[in-house]
Structures are given as C-alpha cells and as structure tokens.
C-alpha cells in the first residue's frame, strides 16, 4: 500500500518536474519581456479596446504611454480618474479635459420625417443607403437601423421609439465608435456641459426641410440673431456652435420655430425679483419671452415662473441687482 503511494508520488512528481524544465527552457526562447509599468498601466485602463485614443487597443496605448508617445490623459473612455492613476504610475501629471459625449443630430422620428419605402435586406444603415440614398425622407436624417447601436461597446446608445437612437450620456465615454459607424455623419461629439445645441444635420434650404421633416432646421437664423453671447453662426444652412462662448441660456431653443434646437439642461434655473426692484423696466426690454416679466413702470415687477427659461439676461441688466437666478428647480424631462 505504502509503496503504491510512493510510486504514485514519484511518478507524478517526476512528470511535473520534467514539464517544468521543458517550460522554463521554452520561456528562454519564447518569453516576451514586458515593462512592468506597461502591465500596471494596462490594469487601470478600461480594457474595452475601443481605439478612441488612436492606438490599436488598450495594450498598444499602455505601451505608448510608458514610452512617452501618448498623452497620459489620452484615454477618453477612462477620463480624468484613469489619467490620474496612469499619472501616478509614471510620475507624470495629467491635464484635466472637458468630458465629451456623443449627440445624435437628428430628431426626425418616423412621425416627423417618414420613410419613403419599405426596405427588405441587410439590417444596416450602410446597406440601406445604397438604395436610392436610403429610406428616410430627409437625405440627412437617421436611417434607424442602428449601426451606431451595434458599434457602441458601452451600452450607451439605444434605438429609441420612432427609429432615432438615444444616447445615455452617463454611460457615454466619447470613444467615437458611433460617430465613425454612422454613414450619414449624424452623430458628433460635444462637450457635456453644452446642454442647448442643434439636433439636426440637414444642410438643405428651409423650403426643402419644411417639406421633409417637421422638426428639422430651416436655417432661419433666429438662433444666431438672438444669441446674447454671439456663440452661434449660420454655416451652410446649419447653426454652428462656439462651445466656449455658449452660456447655455436656452434662448436659441426658445426662439427656434421648429424646435430643431433642443434644450437639454438638467435643471432650468428661474429668475426671481426681490423687493429692491425700482420698476425701471430694463429687464422687460431684454427678456426674450413674451409677457414673462410684467409690472407697471415705477412699481416692483414680477416674473412668471412658468414661462421663464432661465436665460439670466435680466440679472445682468438690472441696475439695482434685484434679480437673481435660483438653481434647484428641477424639471421633469
């Protein structure tokens, strides 16, 4: 009995020993030496291999960062927290960057811009576009097969009702996969702090847009005209934003006749007038909303909380500083 145990131990132990010798010899010839910092950097990376950094996957990026070929904050997906961790490993400082998100620049659901024909074939926007420039009435509008949804690796974009995708901005990492996947170039990356932007990609003239879609930009230019900070310019029949100048006042969305500009502010502040009001009427002159601020000349004015869009123009012009914006008035989107 005892000998049986000993034989078994010796036989298996011997086999294991031989195997380990073989492997250690093999590692001499085939072993790949890796900089330990590369492994460490790789561990803090998200590991989605999305390629948004411009390198072929997380491994390649980790290698490039360690070699100094890539920026410490180069991983857009990981954001500042990952950049900080990489900075710690390499002893470098990461510069803060504004977080971007993907935005779908089309609101033309089927009820607003219908399909021109029934499409039967490969379920992909790229292939449906081959037939007569796609099934959508508007040539710039969303085809609705969800090439972007399939491209997203973070479950951040989903096909909404009516065939236009919706981005979950909390999950979006601005990797840019959907931007590249959209054959109509409808999706763009915008700073997450810019809440009021145009959601239409049509470069058609107003007359054509009116015929094809009820929520498209007709290039009237009202937004550019009324923008208090001159952040909007009209280029090729579409408003173009200067995100640095934009103060998210929401006036453009308010004046937009087709609602192609979407006011996506999470909480809309409201203006309130205190007792210090002298009734000069300056605020009434600048208020973009009709009948929002009311009151007789010389007497304290009142602001209609319902219609106030929280642009804050009145706050700036009030000579006695009697108006203030109060933030935490949450709106149900």
């Amino acid at each position, binding site marked *: 009995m005892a000998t049986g145990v000993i034989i078994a131990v010796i*036989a298996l132990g011997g086999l294991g020993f031989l195997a380990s010798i073989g492997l250690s010899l093999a590692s001499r010839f*085939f072993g790949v030496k890796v900089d330990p910092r590369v492994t460490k950097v790789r561990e803090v990376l998200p590991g989605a291999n999305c390629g948004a950094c411009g390198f072929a996957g997380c*491994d390649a990026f980790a290698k490039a960062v360690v070699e100094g070929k890539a920026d410490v904050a180069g991983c857009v997906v990981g954001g500042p927290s990952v950049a900080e961790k990489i900075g710690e490993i390499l002893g470098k400082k990461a510069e803060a960057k504004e977080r971007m998100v993907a935005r779908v620049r089309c609101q033309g659901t089927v009820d607003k811009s219908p399909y021109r024909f029934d499409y039967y074939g490969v379920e992909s926007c790229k292939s449906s576009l081959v037939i007569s420039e796609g099934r959508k009435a508007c040539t710039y509008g969303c085809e609705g097969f969800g090439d972007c949804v399939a491209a997203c690796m973070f479950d951040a974009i989903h096909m909404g009702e009516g065939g236009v995708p919706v981005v979950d901005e909390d999950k979006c990492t601005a990797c840019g996969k959907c931007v590249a996947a959209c054959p109509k170039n409808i999706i763009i990356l915008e700073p997450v702090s810019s809440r009021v932007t145009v959601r239409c990609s049509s470069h058609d003239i107003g007359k054509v847009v009116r015929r094809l879609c009820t929520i498209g930009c007709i290039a009237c230019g009202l937004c550019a005209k009324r923008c208090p900070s001159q952040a909007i310019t009209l280029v090729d029949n579409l408003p173009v934003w200067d995100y640095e100048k934009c103060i998210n006042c929401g006036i453009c969305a308010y004046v937009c006749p087709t609602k192609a500009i979407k006011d996506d502010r999470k909480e809309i502040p409201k203006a309130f007038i205190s007792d210090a009001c002298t009734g000069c009427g300056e605020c009434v002159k600048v208020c973009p909303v009709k009948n929002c601020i009311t009151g007789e000349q010389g007497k304290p004015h009142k602001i209609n909380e319902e219609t106030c869009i929280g642009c804050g123009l009145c706050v700036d012009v009030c000579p006695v500083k009697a108006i203030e914006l109060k933030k935490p008035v949450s709106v149900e989107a």
Partner: protein
Amino acid sequence: MVGYILLIISAVLVNNFVLARFLGICPFLGVSKKVETALGMGMAVIFVMTMASVITWVIQYYVLVPFHIEYLQTVSFILVIATLVQFVEMVIQKTSPALYQALGIYLPLITTNCAVLGVALLNMQYMYSFMEAAVFGFGSSVGFTFAIVLFAGMRERIELARIPRSLRGVPIALITAGILSLAFMGFRGLVK
C-alpha cells in the same frame, strides 16, 4: 497506410469531435465569430492535440502501465495538456500578439477543452499503437478545426441576415450548430 488514411477520414468527417461526439463545444461556440480567430484557435488545438496524443501514449505505456498506476491516467494527462497549452501560449504571444489578443481567455482554456483530454483517453480505450494514436490525434484536431472554421464562416454570414429578435446571437448559433451536426450525420457509414 490505407488504415491511417481511413483513420484520418473517420476522425475528421465521420466521428468529428465537435459534431458527432459533442466534445469541445466551449471554444466551438466561443471563438467562432470570425474565421480568422477560429483558424488560429484550430491551429493551436491541432498542435496541442497531436502532441498530447503522442506524449500521453508514451506516459501510458512507459510510466503508468509498468508501475501499475493506471488510476493516475487523468491527472497525468491533464498535466501534460496544461504544459503543452502553456507552451503554445508562449509561442503565440511571441509570434503573433494580435492572435494572442483575439483568442483571449480561450487560449488557456484549451487546457480544459474536453476534446483534448478526450482524444488522449480514447487513444488508450481503443488500444491504438503509437503511430495510430498520433494519426488519430492529428485527424481529430483537424476535424475540430474543420468544424470550427466552417461554423465561423456561417456565423459571419448570419451576422448580416434578418433574424427574429429573440433568436439573435447565441440562440441562432446553437440552432446552426445543430443543423451542421445533422448534416455531418450524412457521413455515417462512409468508413466501416
């Protein structure tokens, strides 16, 4: 010689490991999304299975049988397979980092690929000679590669097809695998 050829045909087509014996289903479903990675996986399995057949045969008849410790068969075979997989992993990481990445977790998982252990145990069960064992191991692994590449090609096409929502992804893959297996039943009776 004719015997060896028949053995290969039988292992590749008639008694295909995946489609007739239902061994090695895990990598068959896991790494069959692209033909390229499926082929890489197949090559790795061919190497591991052939080498495992040869080495386990030597261990069986020169270590286990003389010392009457046949009950250690499974453990020692697993040891051999694990070593081989480690070796293959090293080689692939050195020679083709891209393939190494694409195979991912499925590469070390060849260790637990039941087709590999299966071929080693079947060699002993059928009392094959050394050459027969080597040829059977090689043929079986070629059969595995053949099946997984075929399947990967089908899945690539299916990706583009209009499939009912509830069947998308793994369900349609399983149905396809079933039909493929049925098709392979047509080879029954080709040899013996």
